[in-house]
């Protein structure tokens, strides 16, 4: 779900704060939906540190891939997986060697009801619910991870008829937060803020139940000669960004 | 014909109000007023005459119940259709009436036959007093039955619409300017059928028109409407001659007289018409008509002049002895309409005020009228 208001405000804010800087450049960033909240926190910090403005467009990784492939003016791509940026890089749309993992996502089984989950997989195994929401495993890395968890717990067959799929991790969160699905696998970053759960109840899924959700960044060809783009790539690998990213429940 | 059509059944149950139509409609809206209170004969053709915007059509729609006047009373030959005092209102589809709309309003998706059958099959078989074949024959539309309305001329559409209305065996037939949308040729095509209706069916007809010719030709009773109010209501010939209604036909003031064919001269193609109550005859060039046949003649006031003596040396054919009844000065102050009696009939002359004074015209004066032009209205 892209919402143009917050990031245009963000750009405005950053622009105003640094209007004095003669070096101020701008970078267009395509951002995977699950990273919406962190990038909004990173933008002003990035502007303060470098004088450059970050303009973000949000979407599902596959959708952003299609847009980049067809000439969208993005200069940096923050994907929700590792394979999509790799594909772009090998297709010559990214700057070779610029790809790196900017965050490792954490999967969480979450319910909007405060007393529903007890920090374990017990509710999942008890199978007393109507709907379990996951992101489309073929389209979204968090969906793939969720299906791996179900397989590992031996619940795939038992829960097949309870599954409802969101097209993105954002939509999956919607299904759960509106109560249409009692529980669902979402990104920890979506329900986690300032180091703790912002609402509802959850089971943070142990890393060993699914493959790593490596989220890779790539400097795109269009941003190759933009100092602001290079600055962002550099900033994302620095300690300031790392602190912000971790505060949203990602690993590094 | 009437016997054939109605099989001798009575038209309405016996009732003291039979043969009378009582109607009172009052509608007041911004920019529009209809305030009429009418007593009309329960048989024959009553014309609602007036300029456009005078409320004729609104009045007719109230008769049909298509518009509901908040203050209204309507009784037709003993049947109460609306009484706002008791809140009674008979819905249009429950009223035994036929309505012919100005633009025919045939159903575009139905053939002529299906249009005719639409109303016919919706009344119980025992109340069908007009068989389909008779209506078709009366209106001369037998060759049109398989056609769709879009393939009919304007005149044909109106005839189908009239037949369609008749086939509901109405107790009251309402005609809303059925000829208004037709050119002269089509008018002349439909008019004879309307006259046949009048002559052959005993259904009271309310006929809305703004055409003096149509009214003069068809009506028995005339109601003049002006700005939603009744200016005059009475038998046609009396009302046409009312001196207080100069607006009636204004410049086209005219009289209608009845007579019968007394002679035909084939050599000069001259038809003589004897007026009732006098030996005087009117003559005009015309095709032959049977002696004794009743005819109706229209005389325009501007074609009638007056003379104190019987002129001998004139090309005018029609010189009739007359007696002055009364007169009216027109708004321009230069012309006067003089009402005259010839035998049992009345006619009007339009002369200048100068001539009026010069001739010293006074009431009950005997003089001669000279008629320049005469036209035959009905020849049924």
């Amino acid at each position: 779900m892209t919402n143009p208001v917050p990031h245009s405000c963000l750009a405005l804010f950053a622009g105003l704060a640094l209007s004095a800087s003669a070096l101020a450049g701008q970078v267009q960033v395509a951002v995977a939906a699950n990273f919406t909240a962190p990038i909004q926190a990173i933008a002003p910090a990035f502007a303060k540190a470098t004088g450059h403005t970050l303009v973000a467009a949000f979407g599902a990784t596959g959708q952003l891939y299609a847009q980049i492939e067809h000439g969208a003016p993005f200069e940096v791509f923050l994907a929700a997986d590792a394979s999509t940026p790799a594909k772009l890089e090998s297709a010559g749309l990214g700057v070779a060697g610029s790809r790196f993992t900017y965050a490792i996502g954490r999967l969480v089984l979450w319910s909007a009801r405060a007393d529903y989950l007890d920090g374990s997989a017990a509710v999942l195994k008890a199978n007393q619910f109507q709907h379990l929401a996951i992101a489309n495993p073929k389209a979204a890395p968090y969906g793939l991870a969720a299906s791996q968890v179900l397989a590992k717990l031996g619940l795939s067959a038992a829960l097949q008829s309870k599954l409802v799929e969101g097209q993105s991790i954002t939509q999956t969160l919607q299904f759960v937060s509106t109560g249409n699905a009692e529980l669902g696998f979402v990104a920890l970053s979506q329900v986690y803020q300032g180091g703790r759960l912002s609402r509802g109840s959850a089971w943070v899924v142990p890393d060993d139940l699914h493959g790593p959700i490596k989220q890779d960044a790539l400097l795109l060809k269009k941003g190759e000669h933009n100092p602001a783009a290079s600055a962002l790539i550099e900033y994302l690998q620095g300690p300031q960004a790392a602190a912000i990213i971790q505060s949203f429940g990602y690993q590094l | 014909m009437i016997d054939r059509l109605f099989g001798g059944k009575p038209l309405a149950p016996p009732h003291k109000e039979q043969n009378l139509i009582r109607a009172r409609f009052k509608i007041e809206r911004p920019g529009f007023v209809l305030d009429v209170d009418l007593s009309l004969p329960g048989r024959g053709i009553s014309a609602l005459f007036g300029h456009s915007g005078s409320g004729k059509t609104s009045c007719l729609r109230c008769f049909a119940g298509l518009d509901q006047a908040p203050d209204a009373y309507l009784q037709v030959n003993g049947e109460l259709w609306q009484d706002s005092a008791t809140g009674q209102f008979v819905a249009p589809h429950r009223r035994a009436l036929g309505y012919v709309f100005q633009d025919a309003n045939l159903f575009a998706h139905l053939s002529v036959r299906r249009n005719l059958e639409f109303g016919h099959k919706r009344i119980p078989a025992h109340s069908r007093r007009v068989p389909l074949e008779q209506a078709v024959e009366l209106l001369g539309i037998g060759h049109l039955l398989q056609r769709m309305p879009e393939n009919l001329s304007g005149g044909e559409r109106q005839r189908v619409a009239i037949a369609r209305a008749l086939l509901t065996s109405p107790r009251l037939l309402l005609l809303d300017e059925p000829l208004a949308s037709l050119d002269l040729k089509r008018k002349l095509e439909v008019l004879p059928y309307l006259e046949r209706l009048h002559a052959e069916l005993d259904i009271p007809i309310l006929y809305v028109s703004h055409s003096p010719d149509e009214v003069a030709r068809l009506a028995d009773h005339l109601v003049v409407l002006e700005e939603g109010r009744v200016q005059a209501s009475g038998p046609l010939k009396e009302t046409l001659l009312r001196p207080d209604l100069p607006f009636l036909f204004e410049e086209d003031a005219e009289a209608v007289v009845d007579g019968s064919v007394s002679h035909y001269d084939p050599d000069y193609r001259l038809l003589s018409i004897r007026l009732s109550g006098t030996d005087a005859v009117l003559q005009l060039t015309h095709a032959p008509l049977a002696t004794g046949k009743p005819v109706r003649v229209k005389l325009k006031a501007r074609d009638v002049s007056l003379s104190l003596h019987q002129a001998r040396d004139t090309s005018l054919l029609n010189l009739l002895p007359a007696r002055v009844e009364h007169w009216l000065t027109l708004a321009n102050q230069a012309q006067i309409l003089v009402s005259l009696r010839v035998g049992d009939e009345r006619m009007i002359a339009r002369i200048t005020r100068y001539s009026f004074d010069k001739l010293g015209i006074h009431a009950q004066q005997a003089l001669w009228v000279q008629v320049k032009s005469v036209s035959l209205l009905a020849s049924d």
Partner: protein
Amino acid sequence: MPLTQADFNAVLLSLQLASLTTVLLLLIGTPIAWWLAQTNSWLKQPLGAIVALPLVLPPTVIGFYLLVSMGPHGYIGQLTQSLGLGTLTFTFTGLVIGSVFYSLPFVVQPLQNAFEAIGRAPLEAAATLRANPWDAFCTVVLPLAKPGFMTAAILGFAHTVGEFGVVLMIGGNIPGKTQVASVQIYNHVETLEYAQAHWLAGGMLAFSFIVLLALYSSRRRGRQGWQ
């Protein structure tokens, strides 16, 4: 052709959804359109505006409201739960309800236009020919409005087949229940299966074109027919 069984099932489901929705829309839309065409009530404009809302709202807005209201805490959800039906999100029934809302103007507006074009005159003629209002509606208005019904049914059907946002929001992508063709195209695009996406998308394009071509051709014939 690289289409899978899931693709064919999705197409079949789209057609089922569109057929059922169209039938329901004609049943619901006819009285609404008739009322809108006839009334002088002050409610005419507000109701007309509500019916037209899906024309201007992004489908995701309707989808979002449906998701919330059909959910366990929403008004519709509470009603369906109290009737023992559970919640309607992620069900075919839920999609039908969502589609009815979403495609409503595409059915109501052509019908309303048709009724308004017919006007009062044929009804008045029918009344003076002893037809009661219901009789007149069935024997005069319905046949005269036939081109309007054709347009309404075709647009309602085609629009439902093409519906995406609402289905996406309340469907849950369940094969055989809520995974319709438009969502399946999105799935293929998302997973970079462009060949399958092309086949489905091309099929939808051809379908939409043929439907609209049929509609415009029939309109042209209709015009010639009535004059």
